């Protein structure tokens, strides 16, 4: 009993799919911007802050890294109204995903900060830079370079993780798919299409990370093999 694939009912709902895709990209972008900002500030606080700040940062990181994103989402969306704070599903989604990414990226940023030798900061201070200027101009870029692969990997997890927001009916792609599936009963086709769209989204984001990386780490040093070759050429030319 071969199943006959029919994508027509799913594809005819393209406007909803496109809307969901845009919503997912929007949710991802907002969460990445806010989450990375939170992560960087928390990492700096944990790396170099006074004791109280370090403790606070640690508590935040441990809380968000040791609970499921879904529970964090439910707490914000269903829990906070009991304290008098009512968030829309979209707001709750951005805040929960940002805070989740903030905790994970803080640990990644911290690894980067720890990888940069203290003497680099001393050299900057000795030139008259403030601690903050030393961070910004001397530590940040080399530290980012060390952790960039780990960081972009985390961002991909975050982008895919936005699908969990469908559980509180925040507007995003998985919710759009679920609606299409429940009215067409084409489960296989619907989720194959969703998977394909998610792949396209993560690839687009990865291209963006690569471009940002090229902008941040604009070193134009030829790879080792080429350098060896050019040194060899020089020797040849001299001989």
């Amino acid at each position, binding site marked *: 009993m071969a199943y006959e694939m029919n994508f027509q009912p799913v594809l005819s709902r393209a406007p909803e799919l496109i809307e969901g895709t845009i919503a997912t990209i929007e949710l991802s972008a907002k969460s990445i911007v806010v989450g990375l900002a939170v992560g960087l500030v928390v990492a700096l606080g944990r790396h170099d802050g006074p004791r109280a700040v370090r403790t606070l940062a640690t508590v935040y990181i441990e809380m968000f890294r040791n609970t499921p994103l879904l529970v964090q989402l439910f707490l914000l969306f269903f829990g906070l109204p009991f304290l008098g704070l009512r968030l829309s599903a979209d707001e709750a989604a951005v805040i929960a995903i940002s805070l989740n990414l903030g905790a994970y990226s803080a640990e990644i940023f911290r690894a980067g900060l720890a990888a940069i030798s203290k003497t*680099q900061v*001393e*050299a900057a*201070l*000795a*030139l*008259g830079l403030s601690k903050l200027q030393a961070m910004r101009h001397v530590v940040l*870029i*080399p530290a980012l*370079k060390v952790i960039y692969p780990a960081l972009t990997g985390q961002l991909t997890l975050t982008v895919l993780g936005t699908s969990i927001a469908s559980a509180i009916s925040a507007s995003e792609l998985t919710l759009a798919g679920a609606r299409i599936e429940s009215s067409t009963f084409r489960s296989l086709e619907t989720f194959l299409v969703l998977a394909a769209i998610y792949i396209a989204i993560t690839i687009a984001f990865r291209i963006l990370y690569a471009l940002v990386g090229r902008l941040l780490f604009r070193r134009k040093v030829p790879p080792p093999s080429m350098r060896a070759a050019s040194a060899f050429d020089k020797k040849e030319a001299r001989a």
Partner: protein
Amino acid sequence: MSTALHIEGLKKYFGAHEVLKGVDLEVASGDVIAVIGRSGSGKSTMLRCINGLEPFQQGRIRIAGHVLGEGPQNLRVLRTEVGMVFQSYNLFPHLTVAENITLAPRVVRKLPRARHDELVDKVLSRVGLLDKKHAYPDELSGGQQQRVAIARSLAMEPRVMLFDEVTSALDPELTGEVLKAIQELAETGMTMVLVTHEMGFARQVATKTVFMHHGRVWESGPSEEIFGNPQTDELRAFIEPNLK
């Protein structure tokens, strides 16, 4: 001659361990002071106290119009007037030679971009590396990196320069080019304090040599006398194997 640096009763502890046990030192403008002594004698620690990289518990340091050890000080202003070159060069790996040099003038002094080239050319020509302007640090030899570090320090036009064992990480064949750059700087009348293991160089270039031992200035005086006619057994024991 006016006093460029005056250290009085400097004491420094790492925990319970007393590293500097009351150091006194006076450096006149234009002096080139070599600080010699065994590892652990407190030479580098003293140097790091001078520009506030290392806090100390007792004593006073007067340098370039600032007094350290009498309440809070604007260390940032002091540091723009006191240059420091480190053993491990500490060039910033993500910046070109020119960007390494202009970072502090740009960020701290707000030097307009139009004057960057002129500044880079001026300080790089003093260390003979004009052609390396656009290179990255890891494309340079250790000796070249250290000369760039000297140029980077000079770009802030310091009144005093501190050198912390700047040739210790270099191969012997690269040491010469760095020492030559320092010697040329000495000839321009720059006030300098050099912590060094290069006895020949200290004797030849330094106007005065300070021998530190057990956290104190054990013996000091004109370099010729320190090396030619050491007064204490400790200094004799220290320089004899070094001069052979």
